[in-house]
């Protein structure tokens, strides 16, 4: 049976293979944007994603550099007509993720900073 989320599957497998993340979450936010004008001719349900990745591979790389790593993996999918239109990224190293969890525990009730990225 064909997968309901081919794009997400592709993303997951590519990111996993290339970055060996210790933590990987992919959220499909497409439904939040489905009514937006740029989306009016879209037939895909997989246009807007939010990805949280924790990987050693990001160590000593700046945020833009980390995001570029992910973009590079999904280059084709993002360039494709009807492919990924927007991608939000949160890229951390295991230590950073640790620090963030600790910080959040301290400031109980603080919202996890929602990642926001632009749309292609």
């Amino acid at each position: 049976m064909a997968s309901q989320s081919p794009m997400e599957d592709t993303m997951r497998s590519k990111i996993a293979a290339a970055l060996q993340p210790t933590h990987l979450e992919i959220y499909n936010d497409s439904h939040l944007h489905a009514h937006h004008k740029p989306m009016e001719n879209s037939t895909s349900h997989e246009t807007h994603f939010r990805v949280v990745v924790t990987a050693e591979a990001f160590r000593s790389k700046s945020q833009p550099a980390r995001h570029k790593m992910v973009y590079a993996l999904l280059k084709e999918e993002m360039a494709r007509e009807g492919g990924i239109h927007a991608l939000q990224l949160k890229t951390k190293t295991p230590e950073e993720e640790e620090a963030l969890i600790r910080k959040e525990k301290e400031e109980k009730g603080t919202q996890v900073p929602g990642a926001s990225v632009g749309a292609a």
Partner: protein
Amino acid sequence: MSTLIEIKSEDDWSNHTSAIPPTALQIISFHAPWAAPCAQMRTVLETLASSYPITEPLSTSWVSMNAEELMDISDNFDVTAVPYLVLTRNNEILETVSGSDATKVREAIEKYAKASAGIPNGNRSSAAATTGGNVATNSSTNTPAVADPATAPQHSTGDVKEDKEELHKRLTTLVKAAPVMLFMKGTPSAPQCGFSKQLVALLRENSVKYGFFNILADDDVRQGLKEFSDWPTFPQLYVDGELVGGLDIVKEELSNEPDFLKAYSVSKSTAV
């Protein structure tokens, strides 16, 4: 080259109008300092003006005024929104352009300017090359660079390779057009994308002074910039000509380091 003069008072205005010949095309821009698109429009006009030589008798006159401060004058011209452009000759209104569509503004001016006194040095390239928005910058010395006359006067793709180089050159200049440059979808007053909107809000909250460019109005820049910076999405924020990233990165930087953009903030909320 002509310059955009700021009219500060009613007297200023009457002095000015009585001094120009009836054949001259009057280009009158109404603005409000708190409206970001006005700053952008100012830059567009300054750039355009610089490509029109000062002639004798005067063929084009370029003025700008604060619509709120000079309310009688703006009322006279029925200005209800800014930026607003009025073109007159011999005290007759030829055309008006409301809003920040740089192409429309340029085309209207060119249309009537041609009738005035010959064709200006055919610089469709200046604003044409950067349609859809120029930058709000406080140093107008930057503007001529942004409006660098391209070797290809038309917006066409005659020689693809040349265009690419030209585009690259233009982008290099564009990202440095202001210390903080935002390439977004839409404009700060009318963002066309939730992410662009959020980034604008973030910059505003931090009182950052920035220039912006509406990539929806210029597909060359939209596609070119993606290649140029190896970054597939918008909005894109550049600081001192270097890509910082999109919304999430800027958000992250600011939460880690609240003084991240401190150096570029303003105390007042004026855009220019």
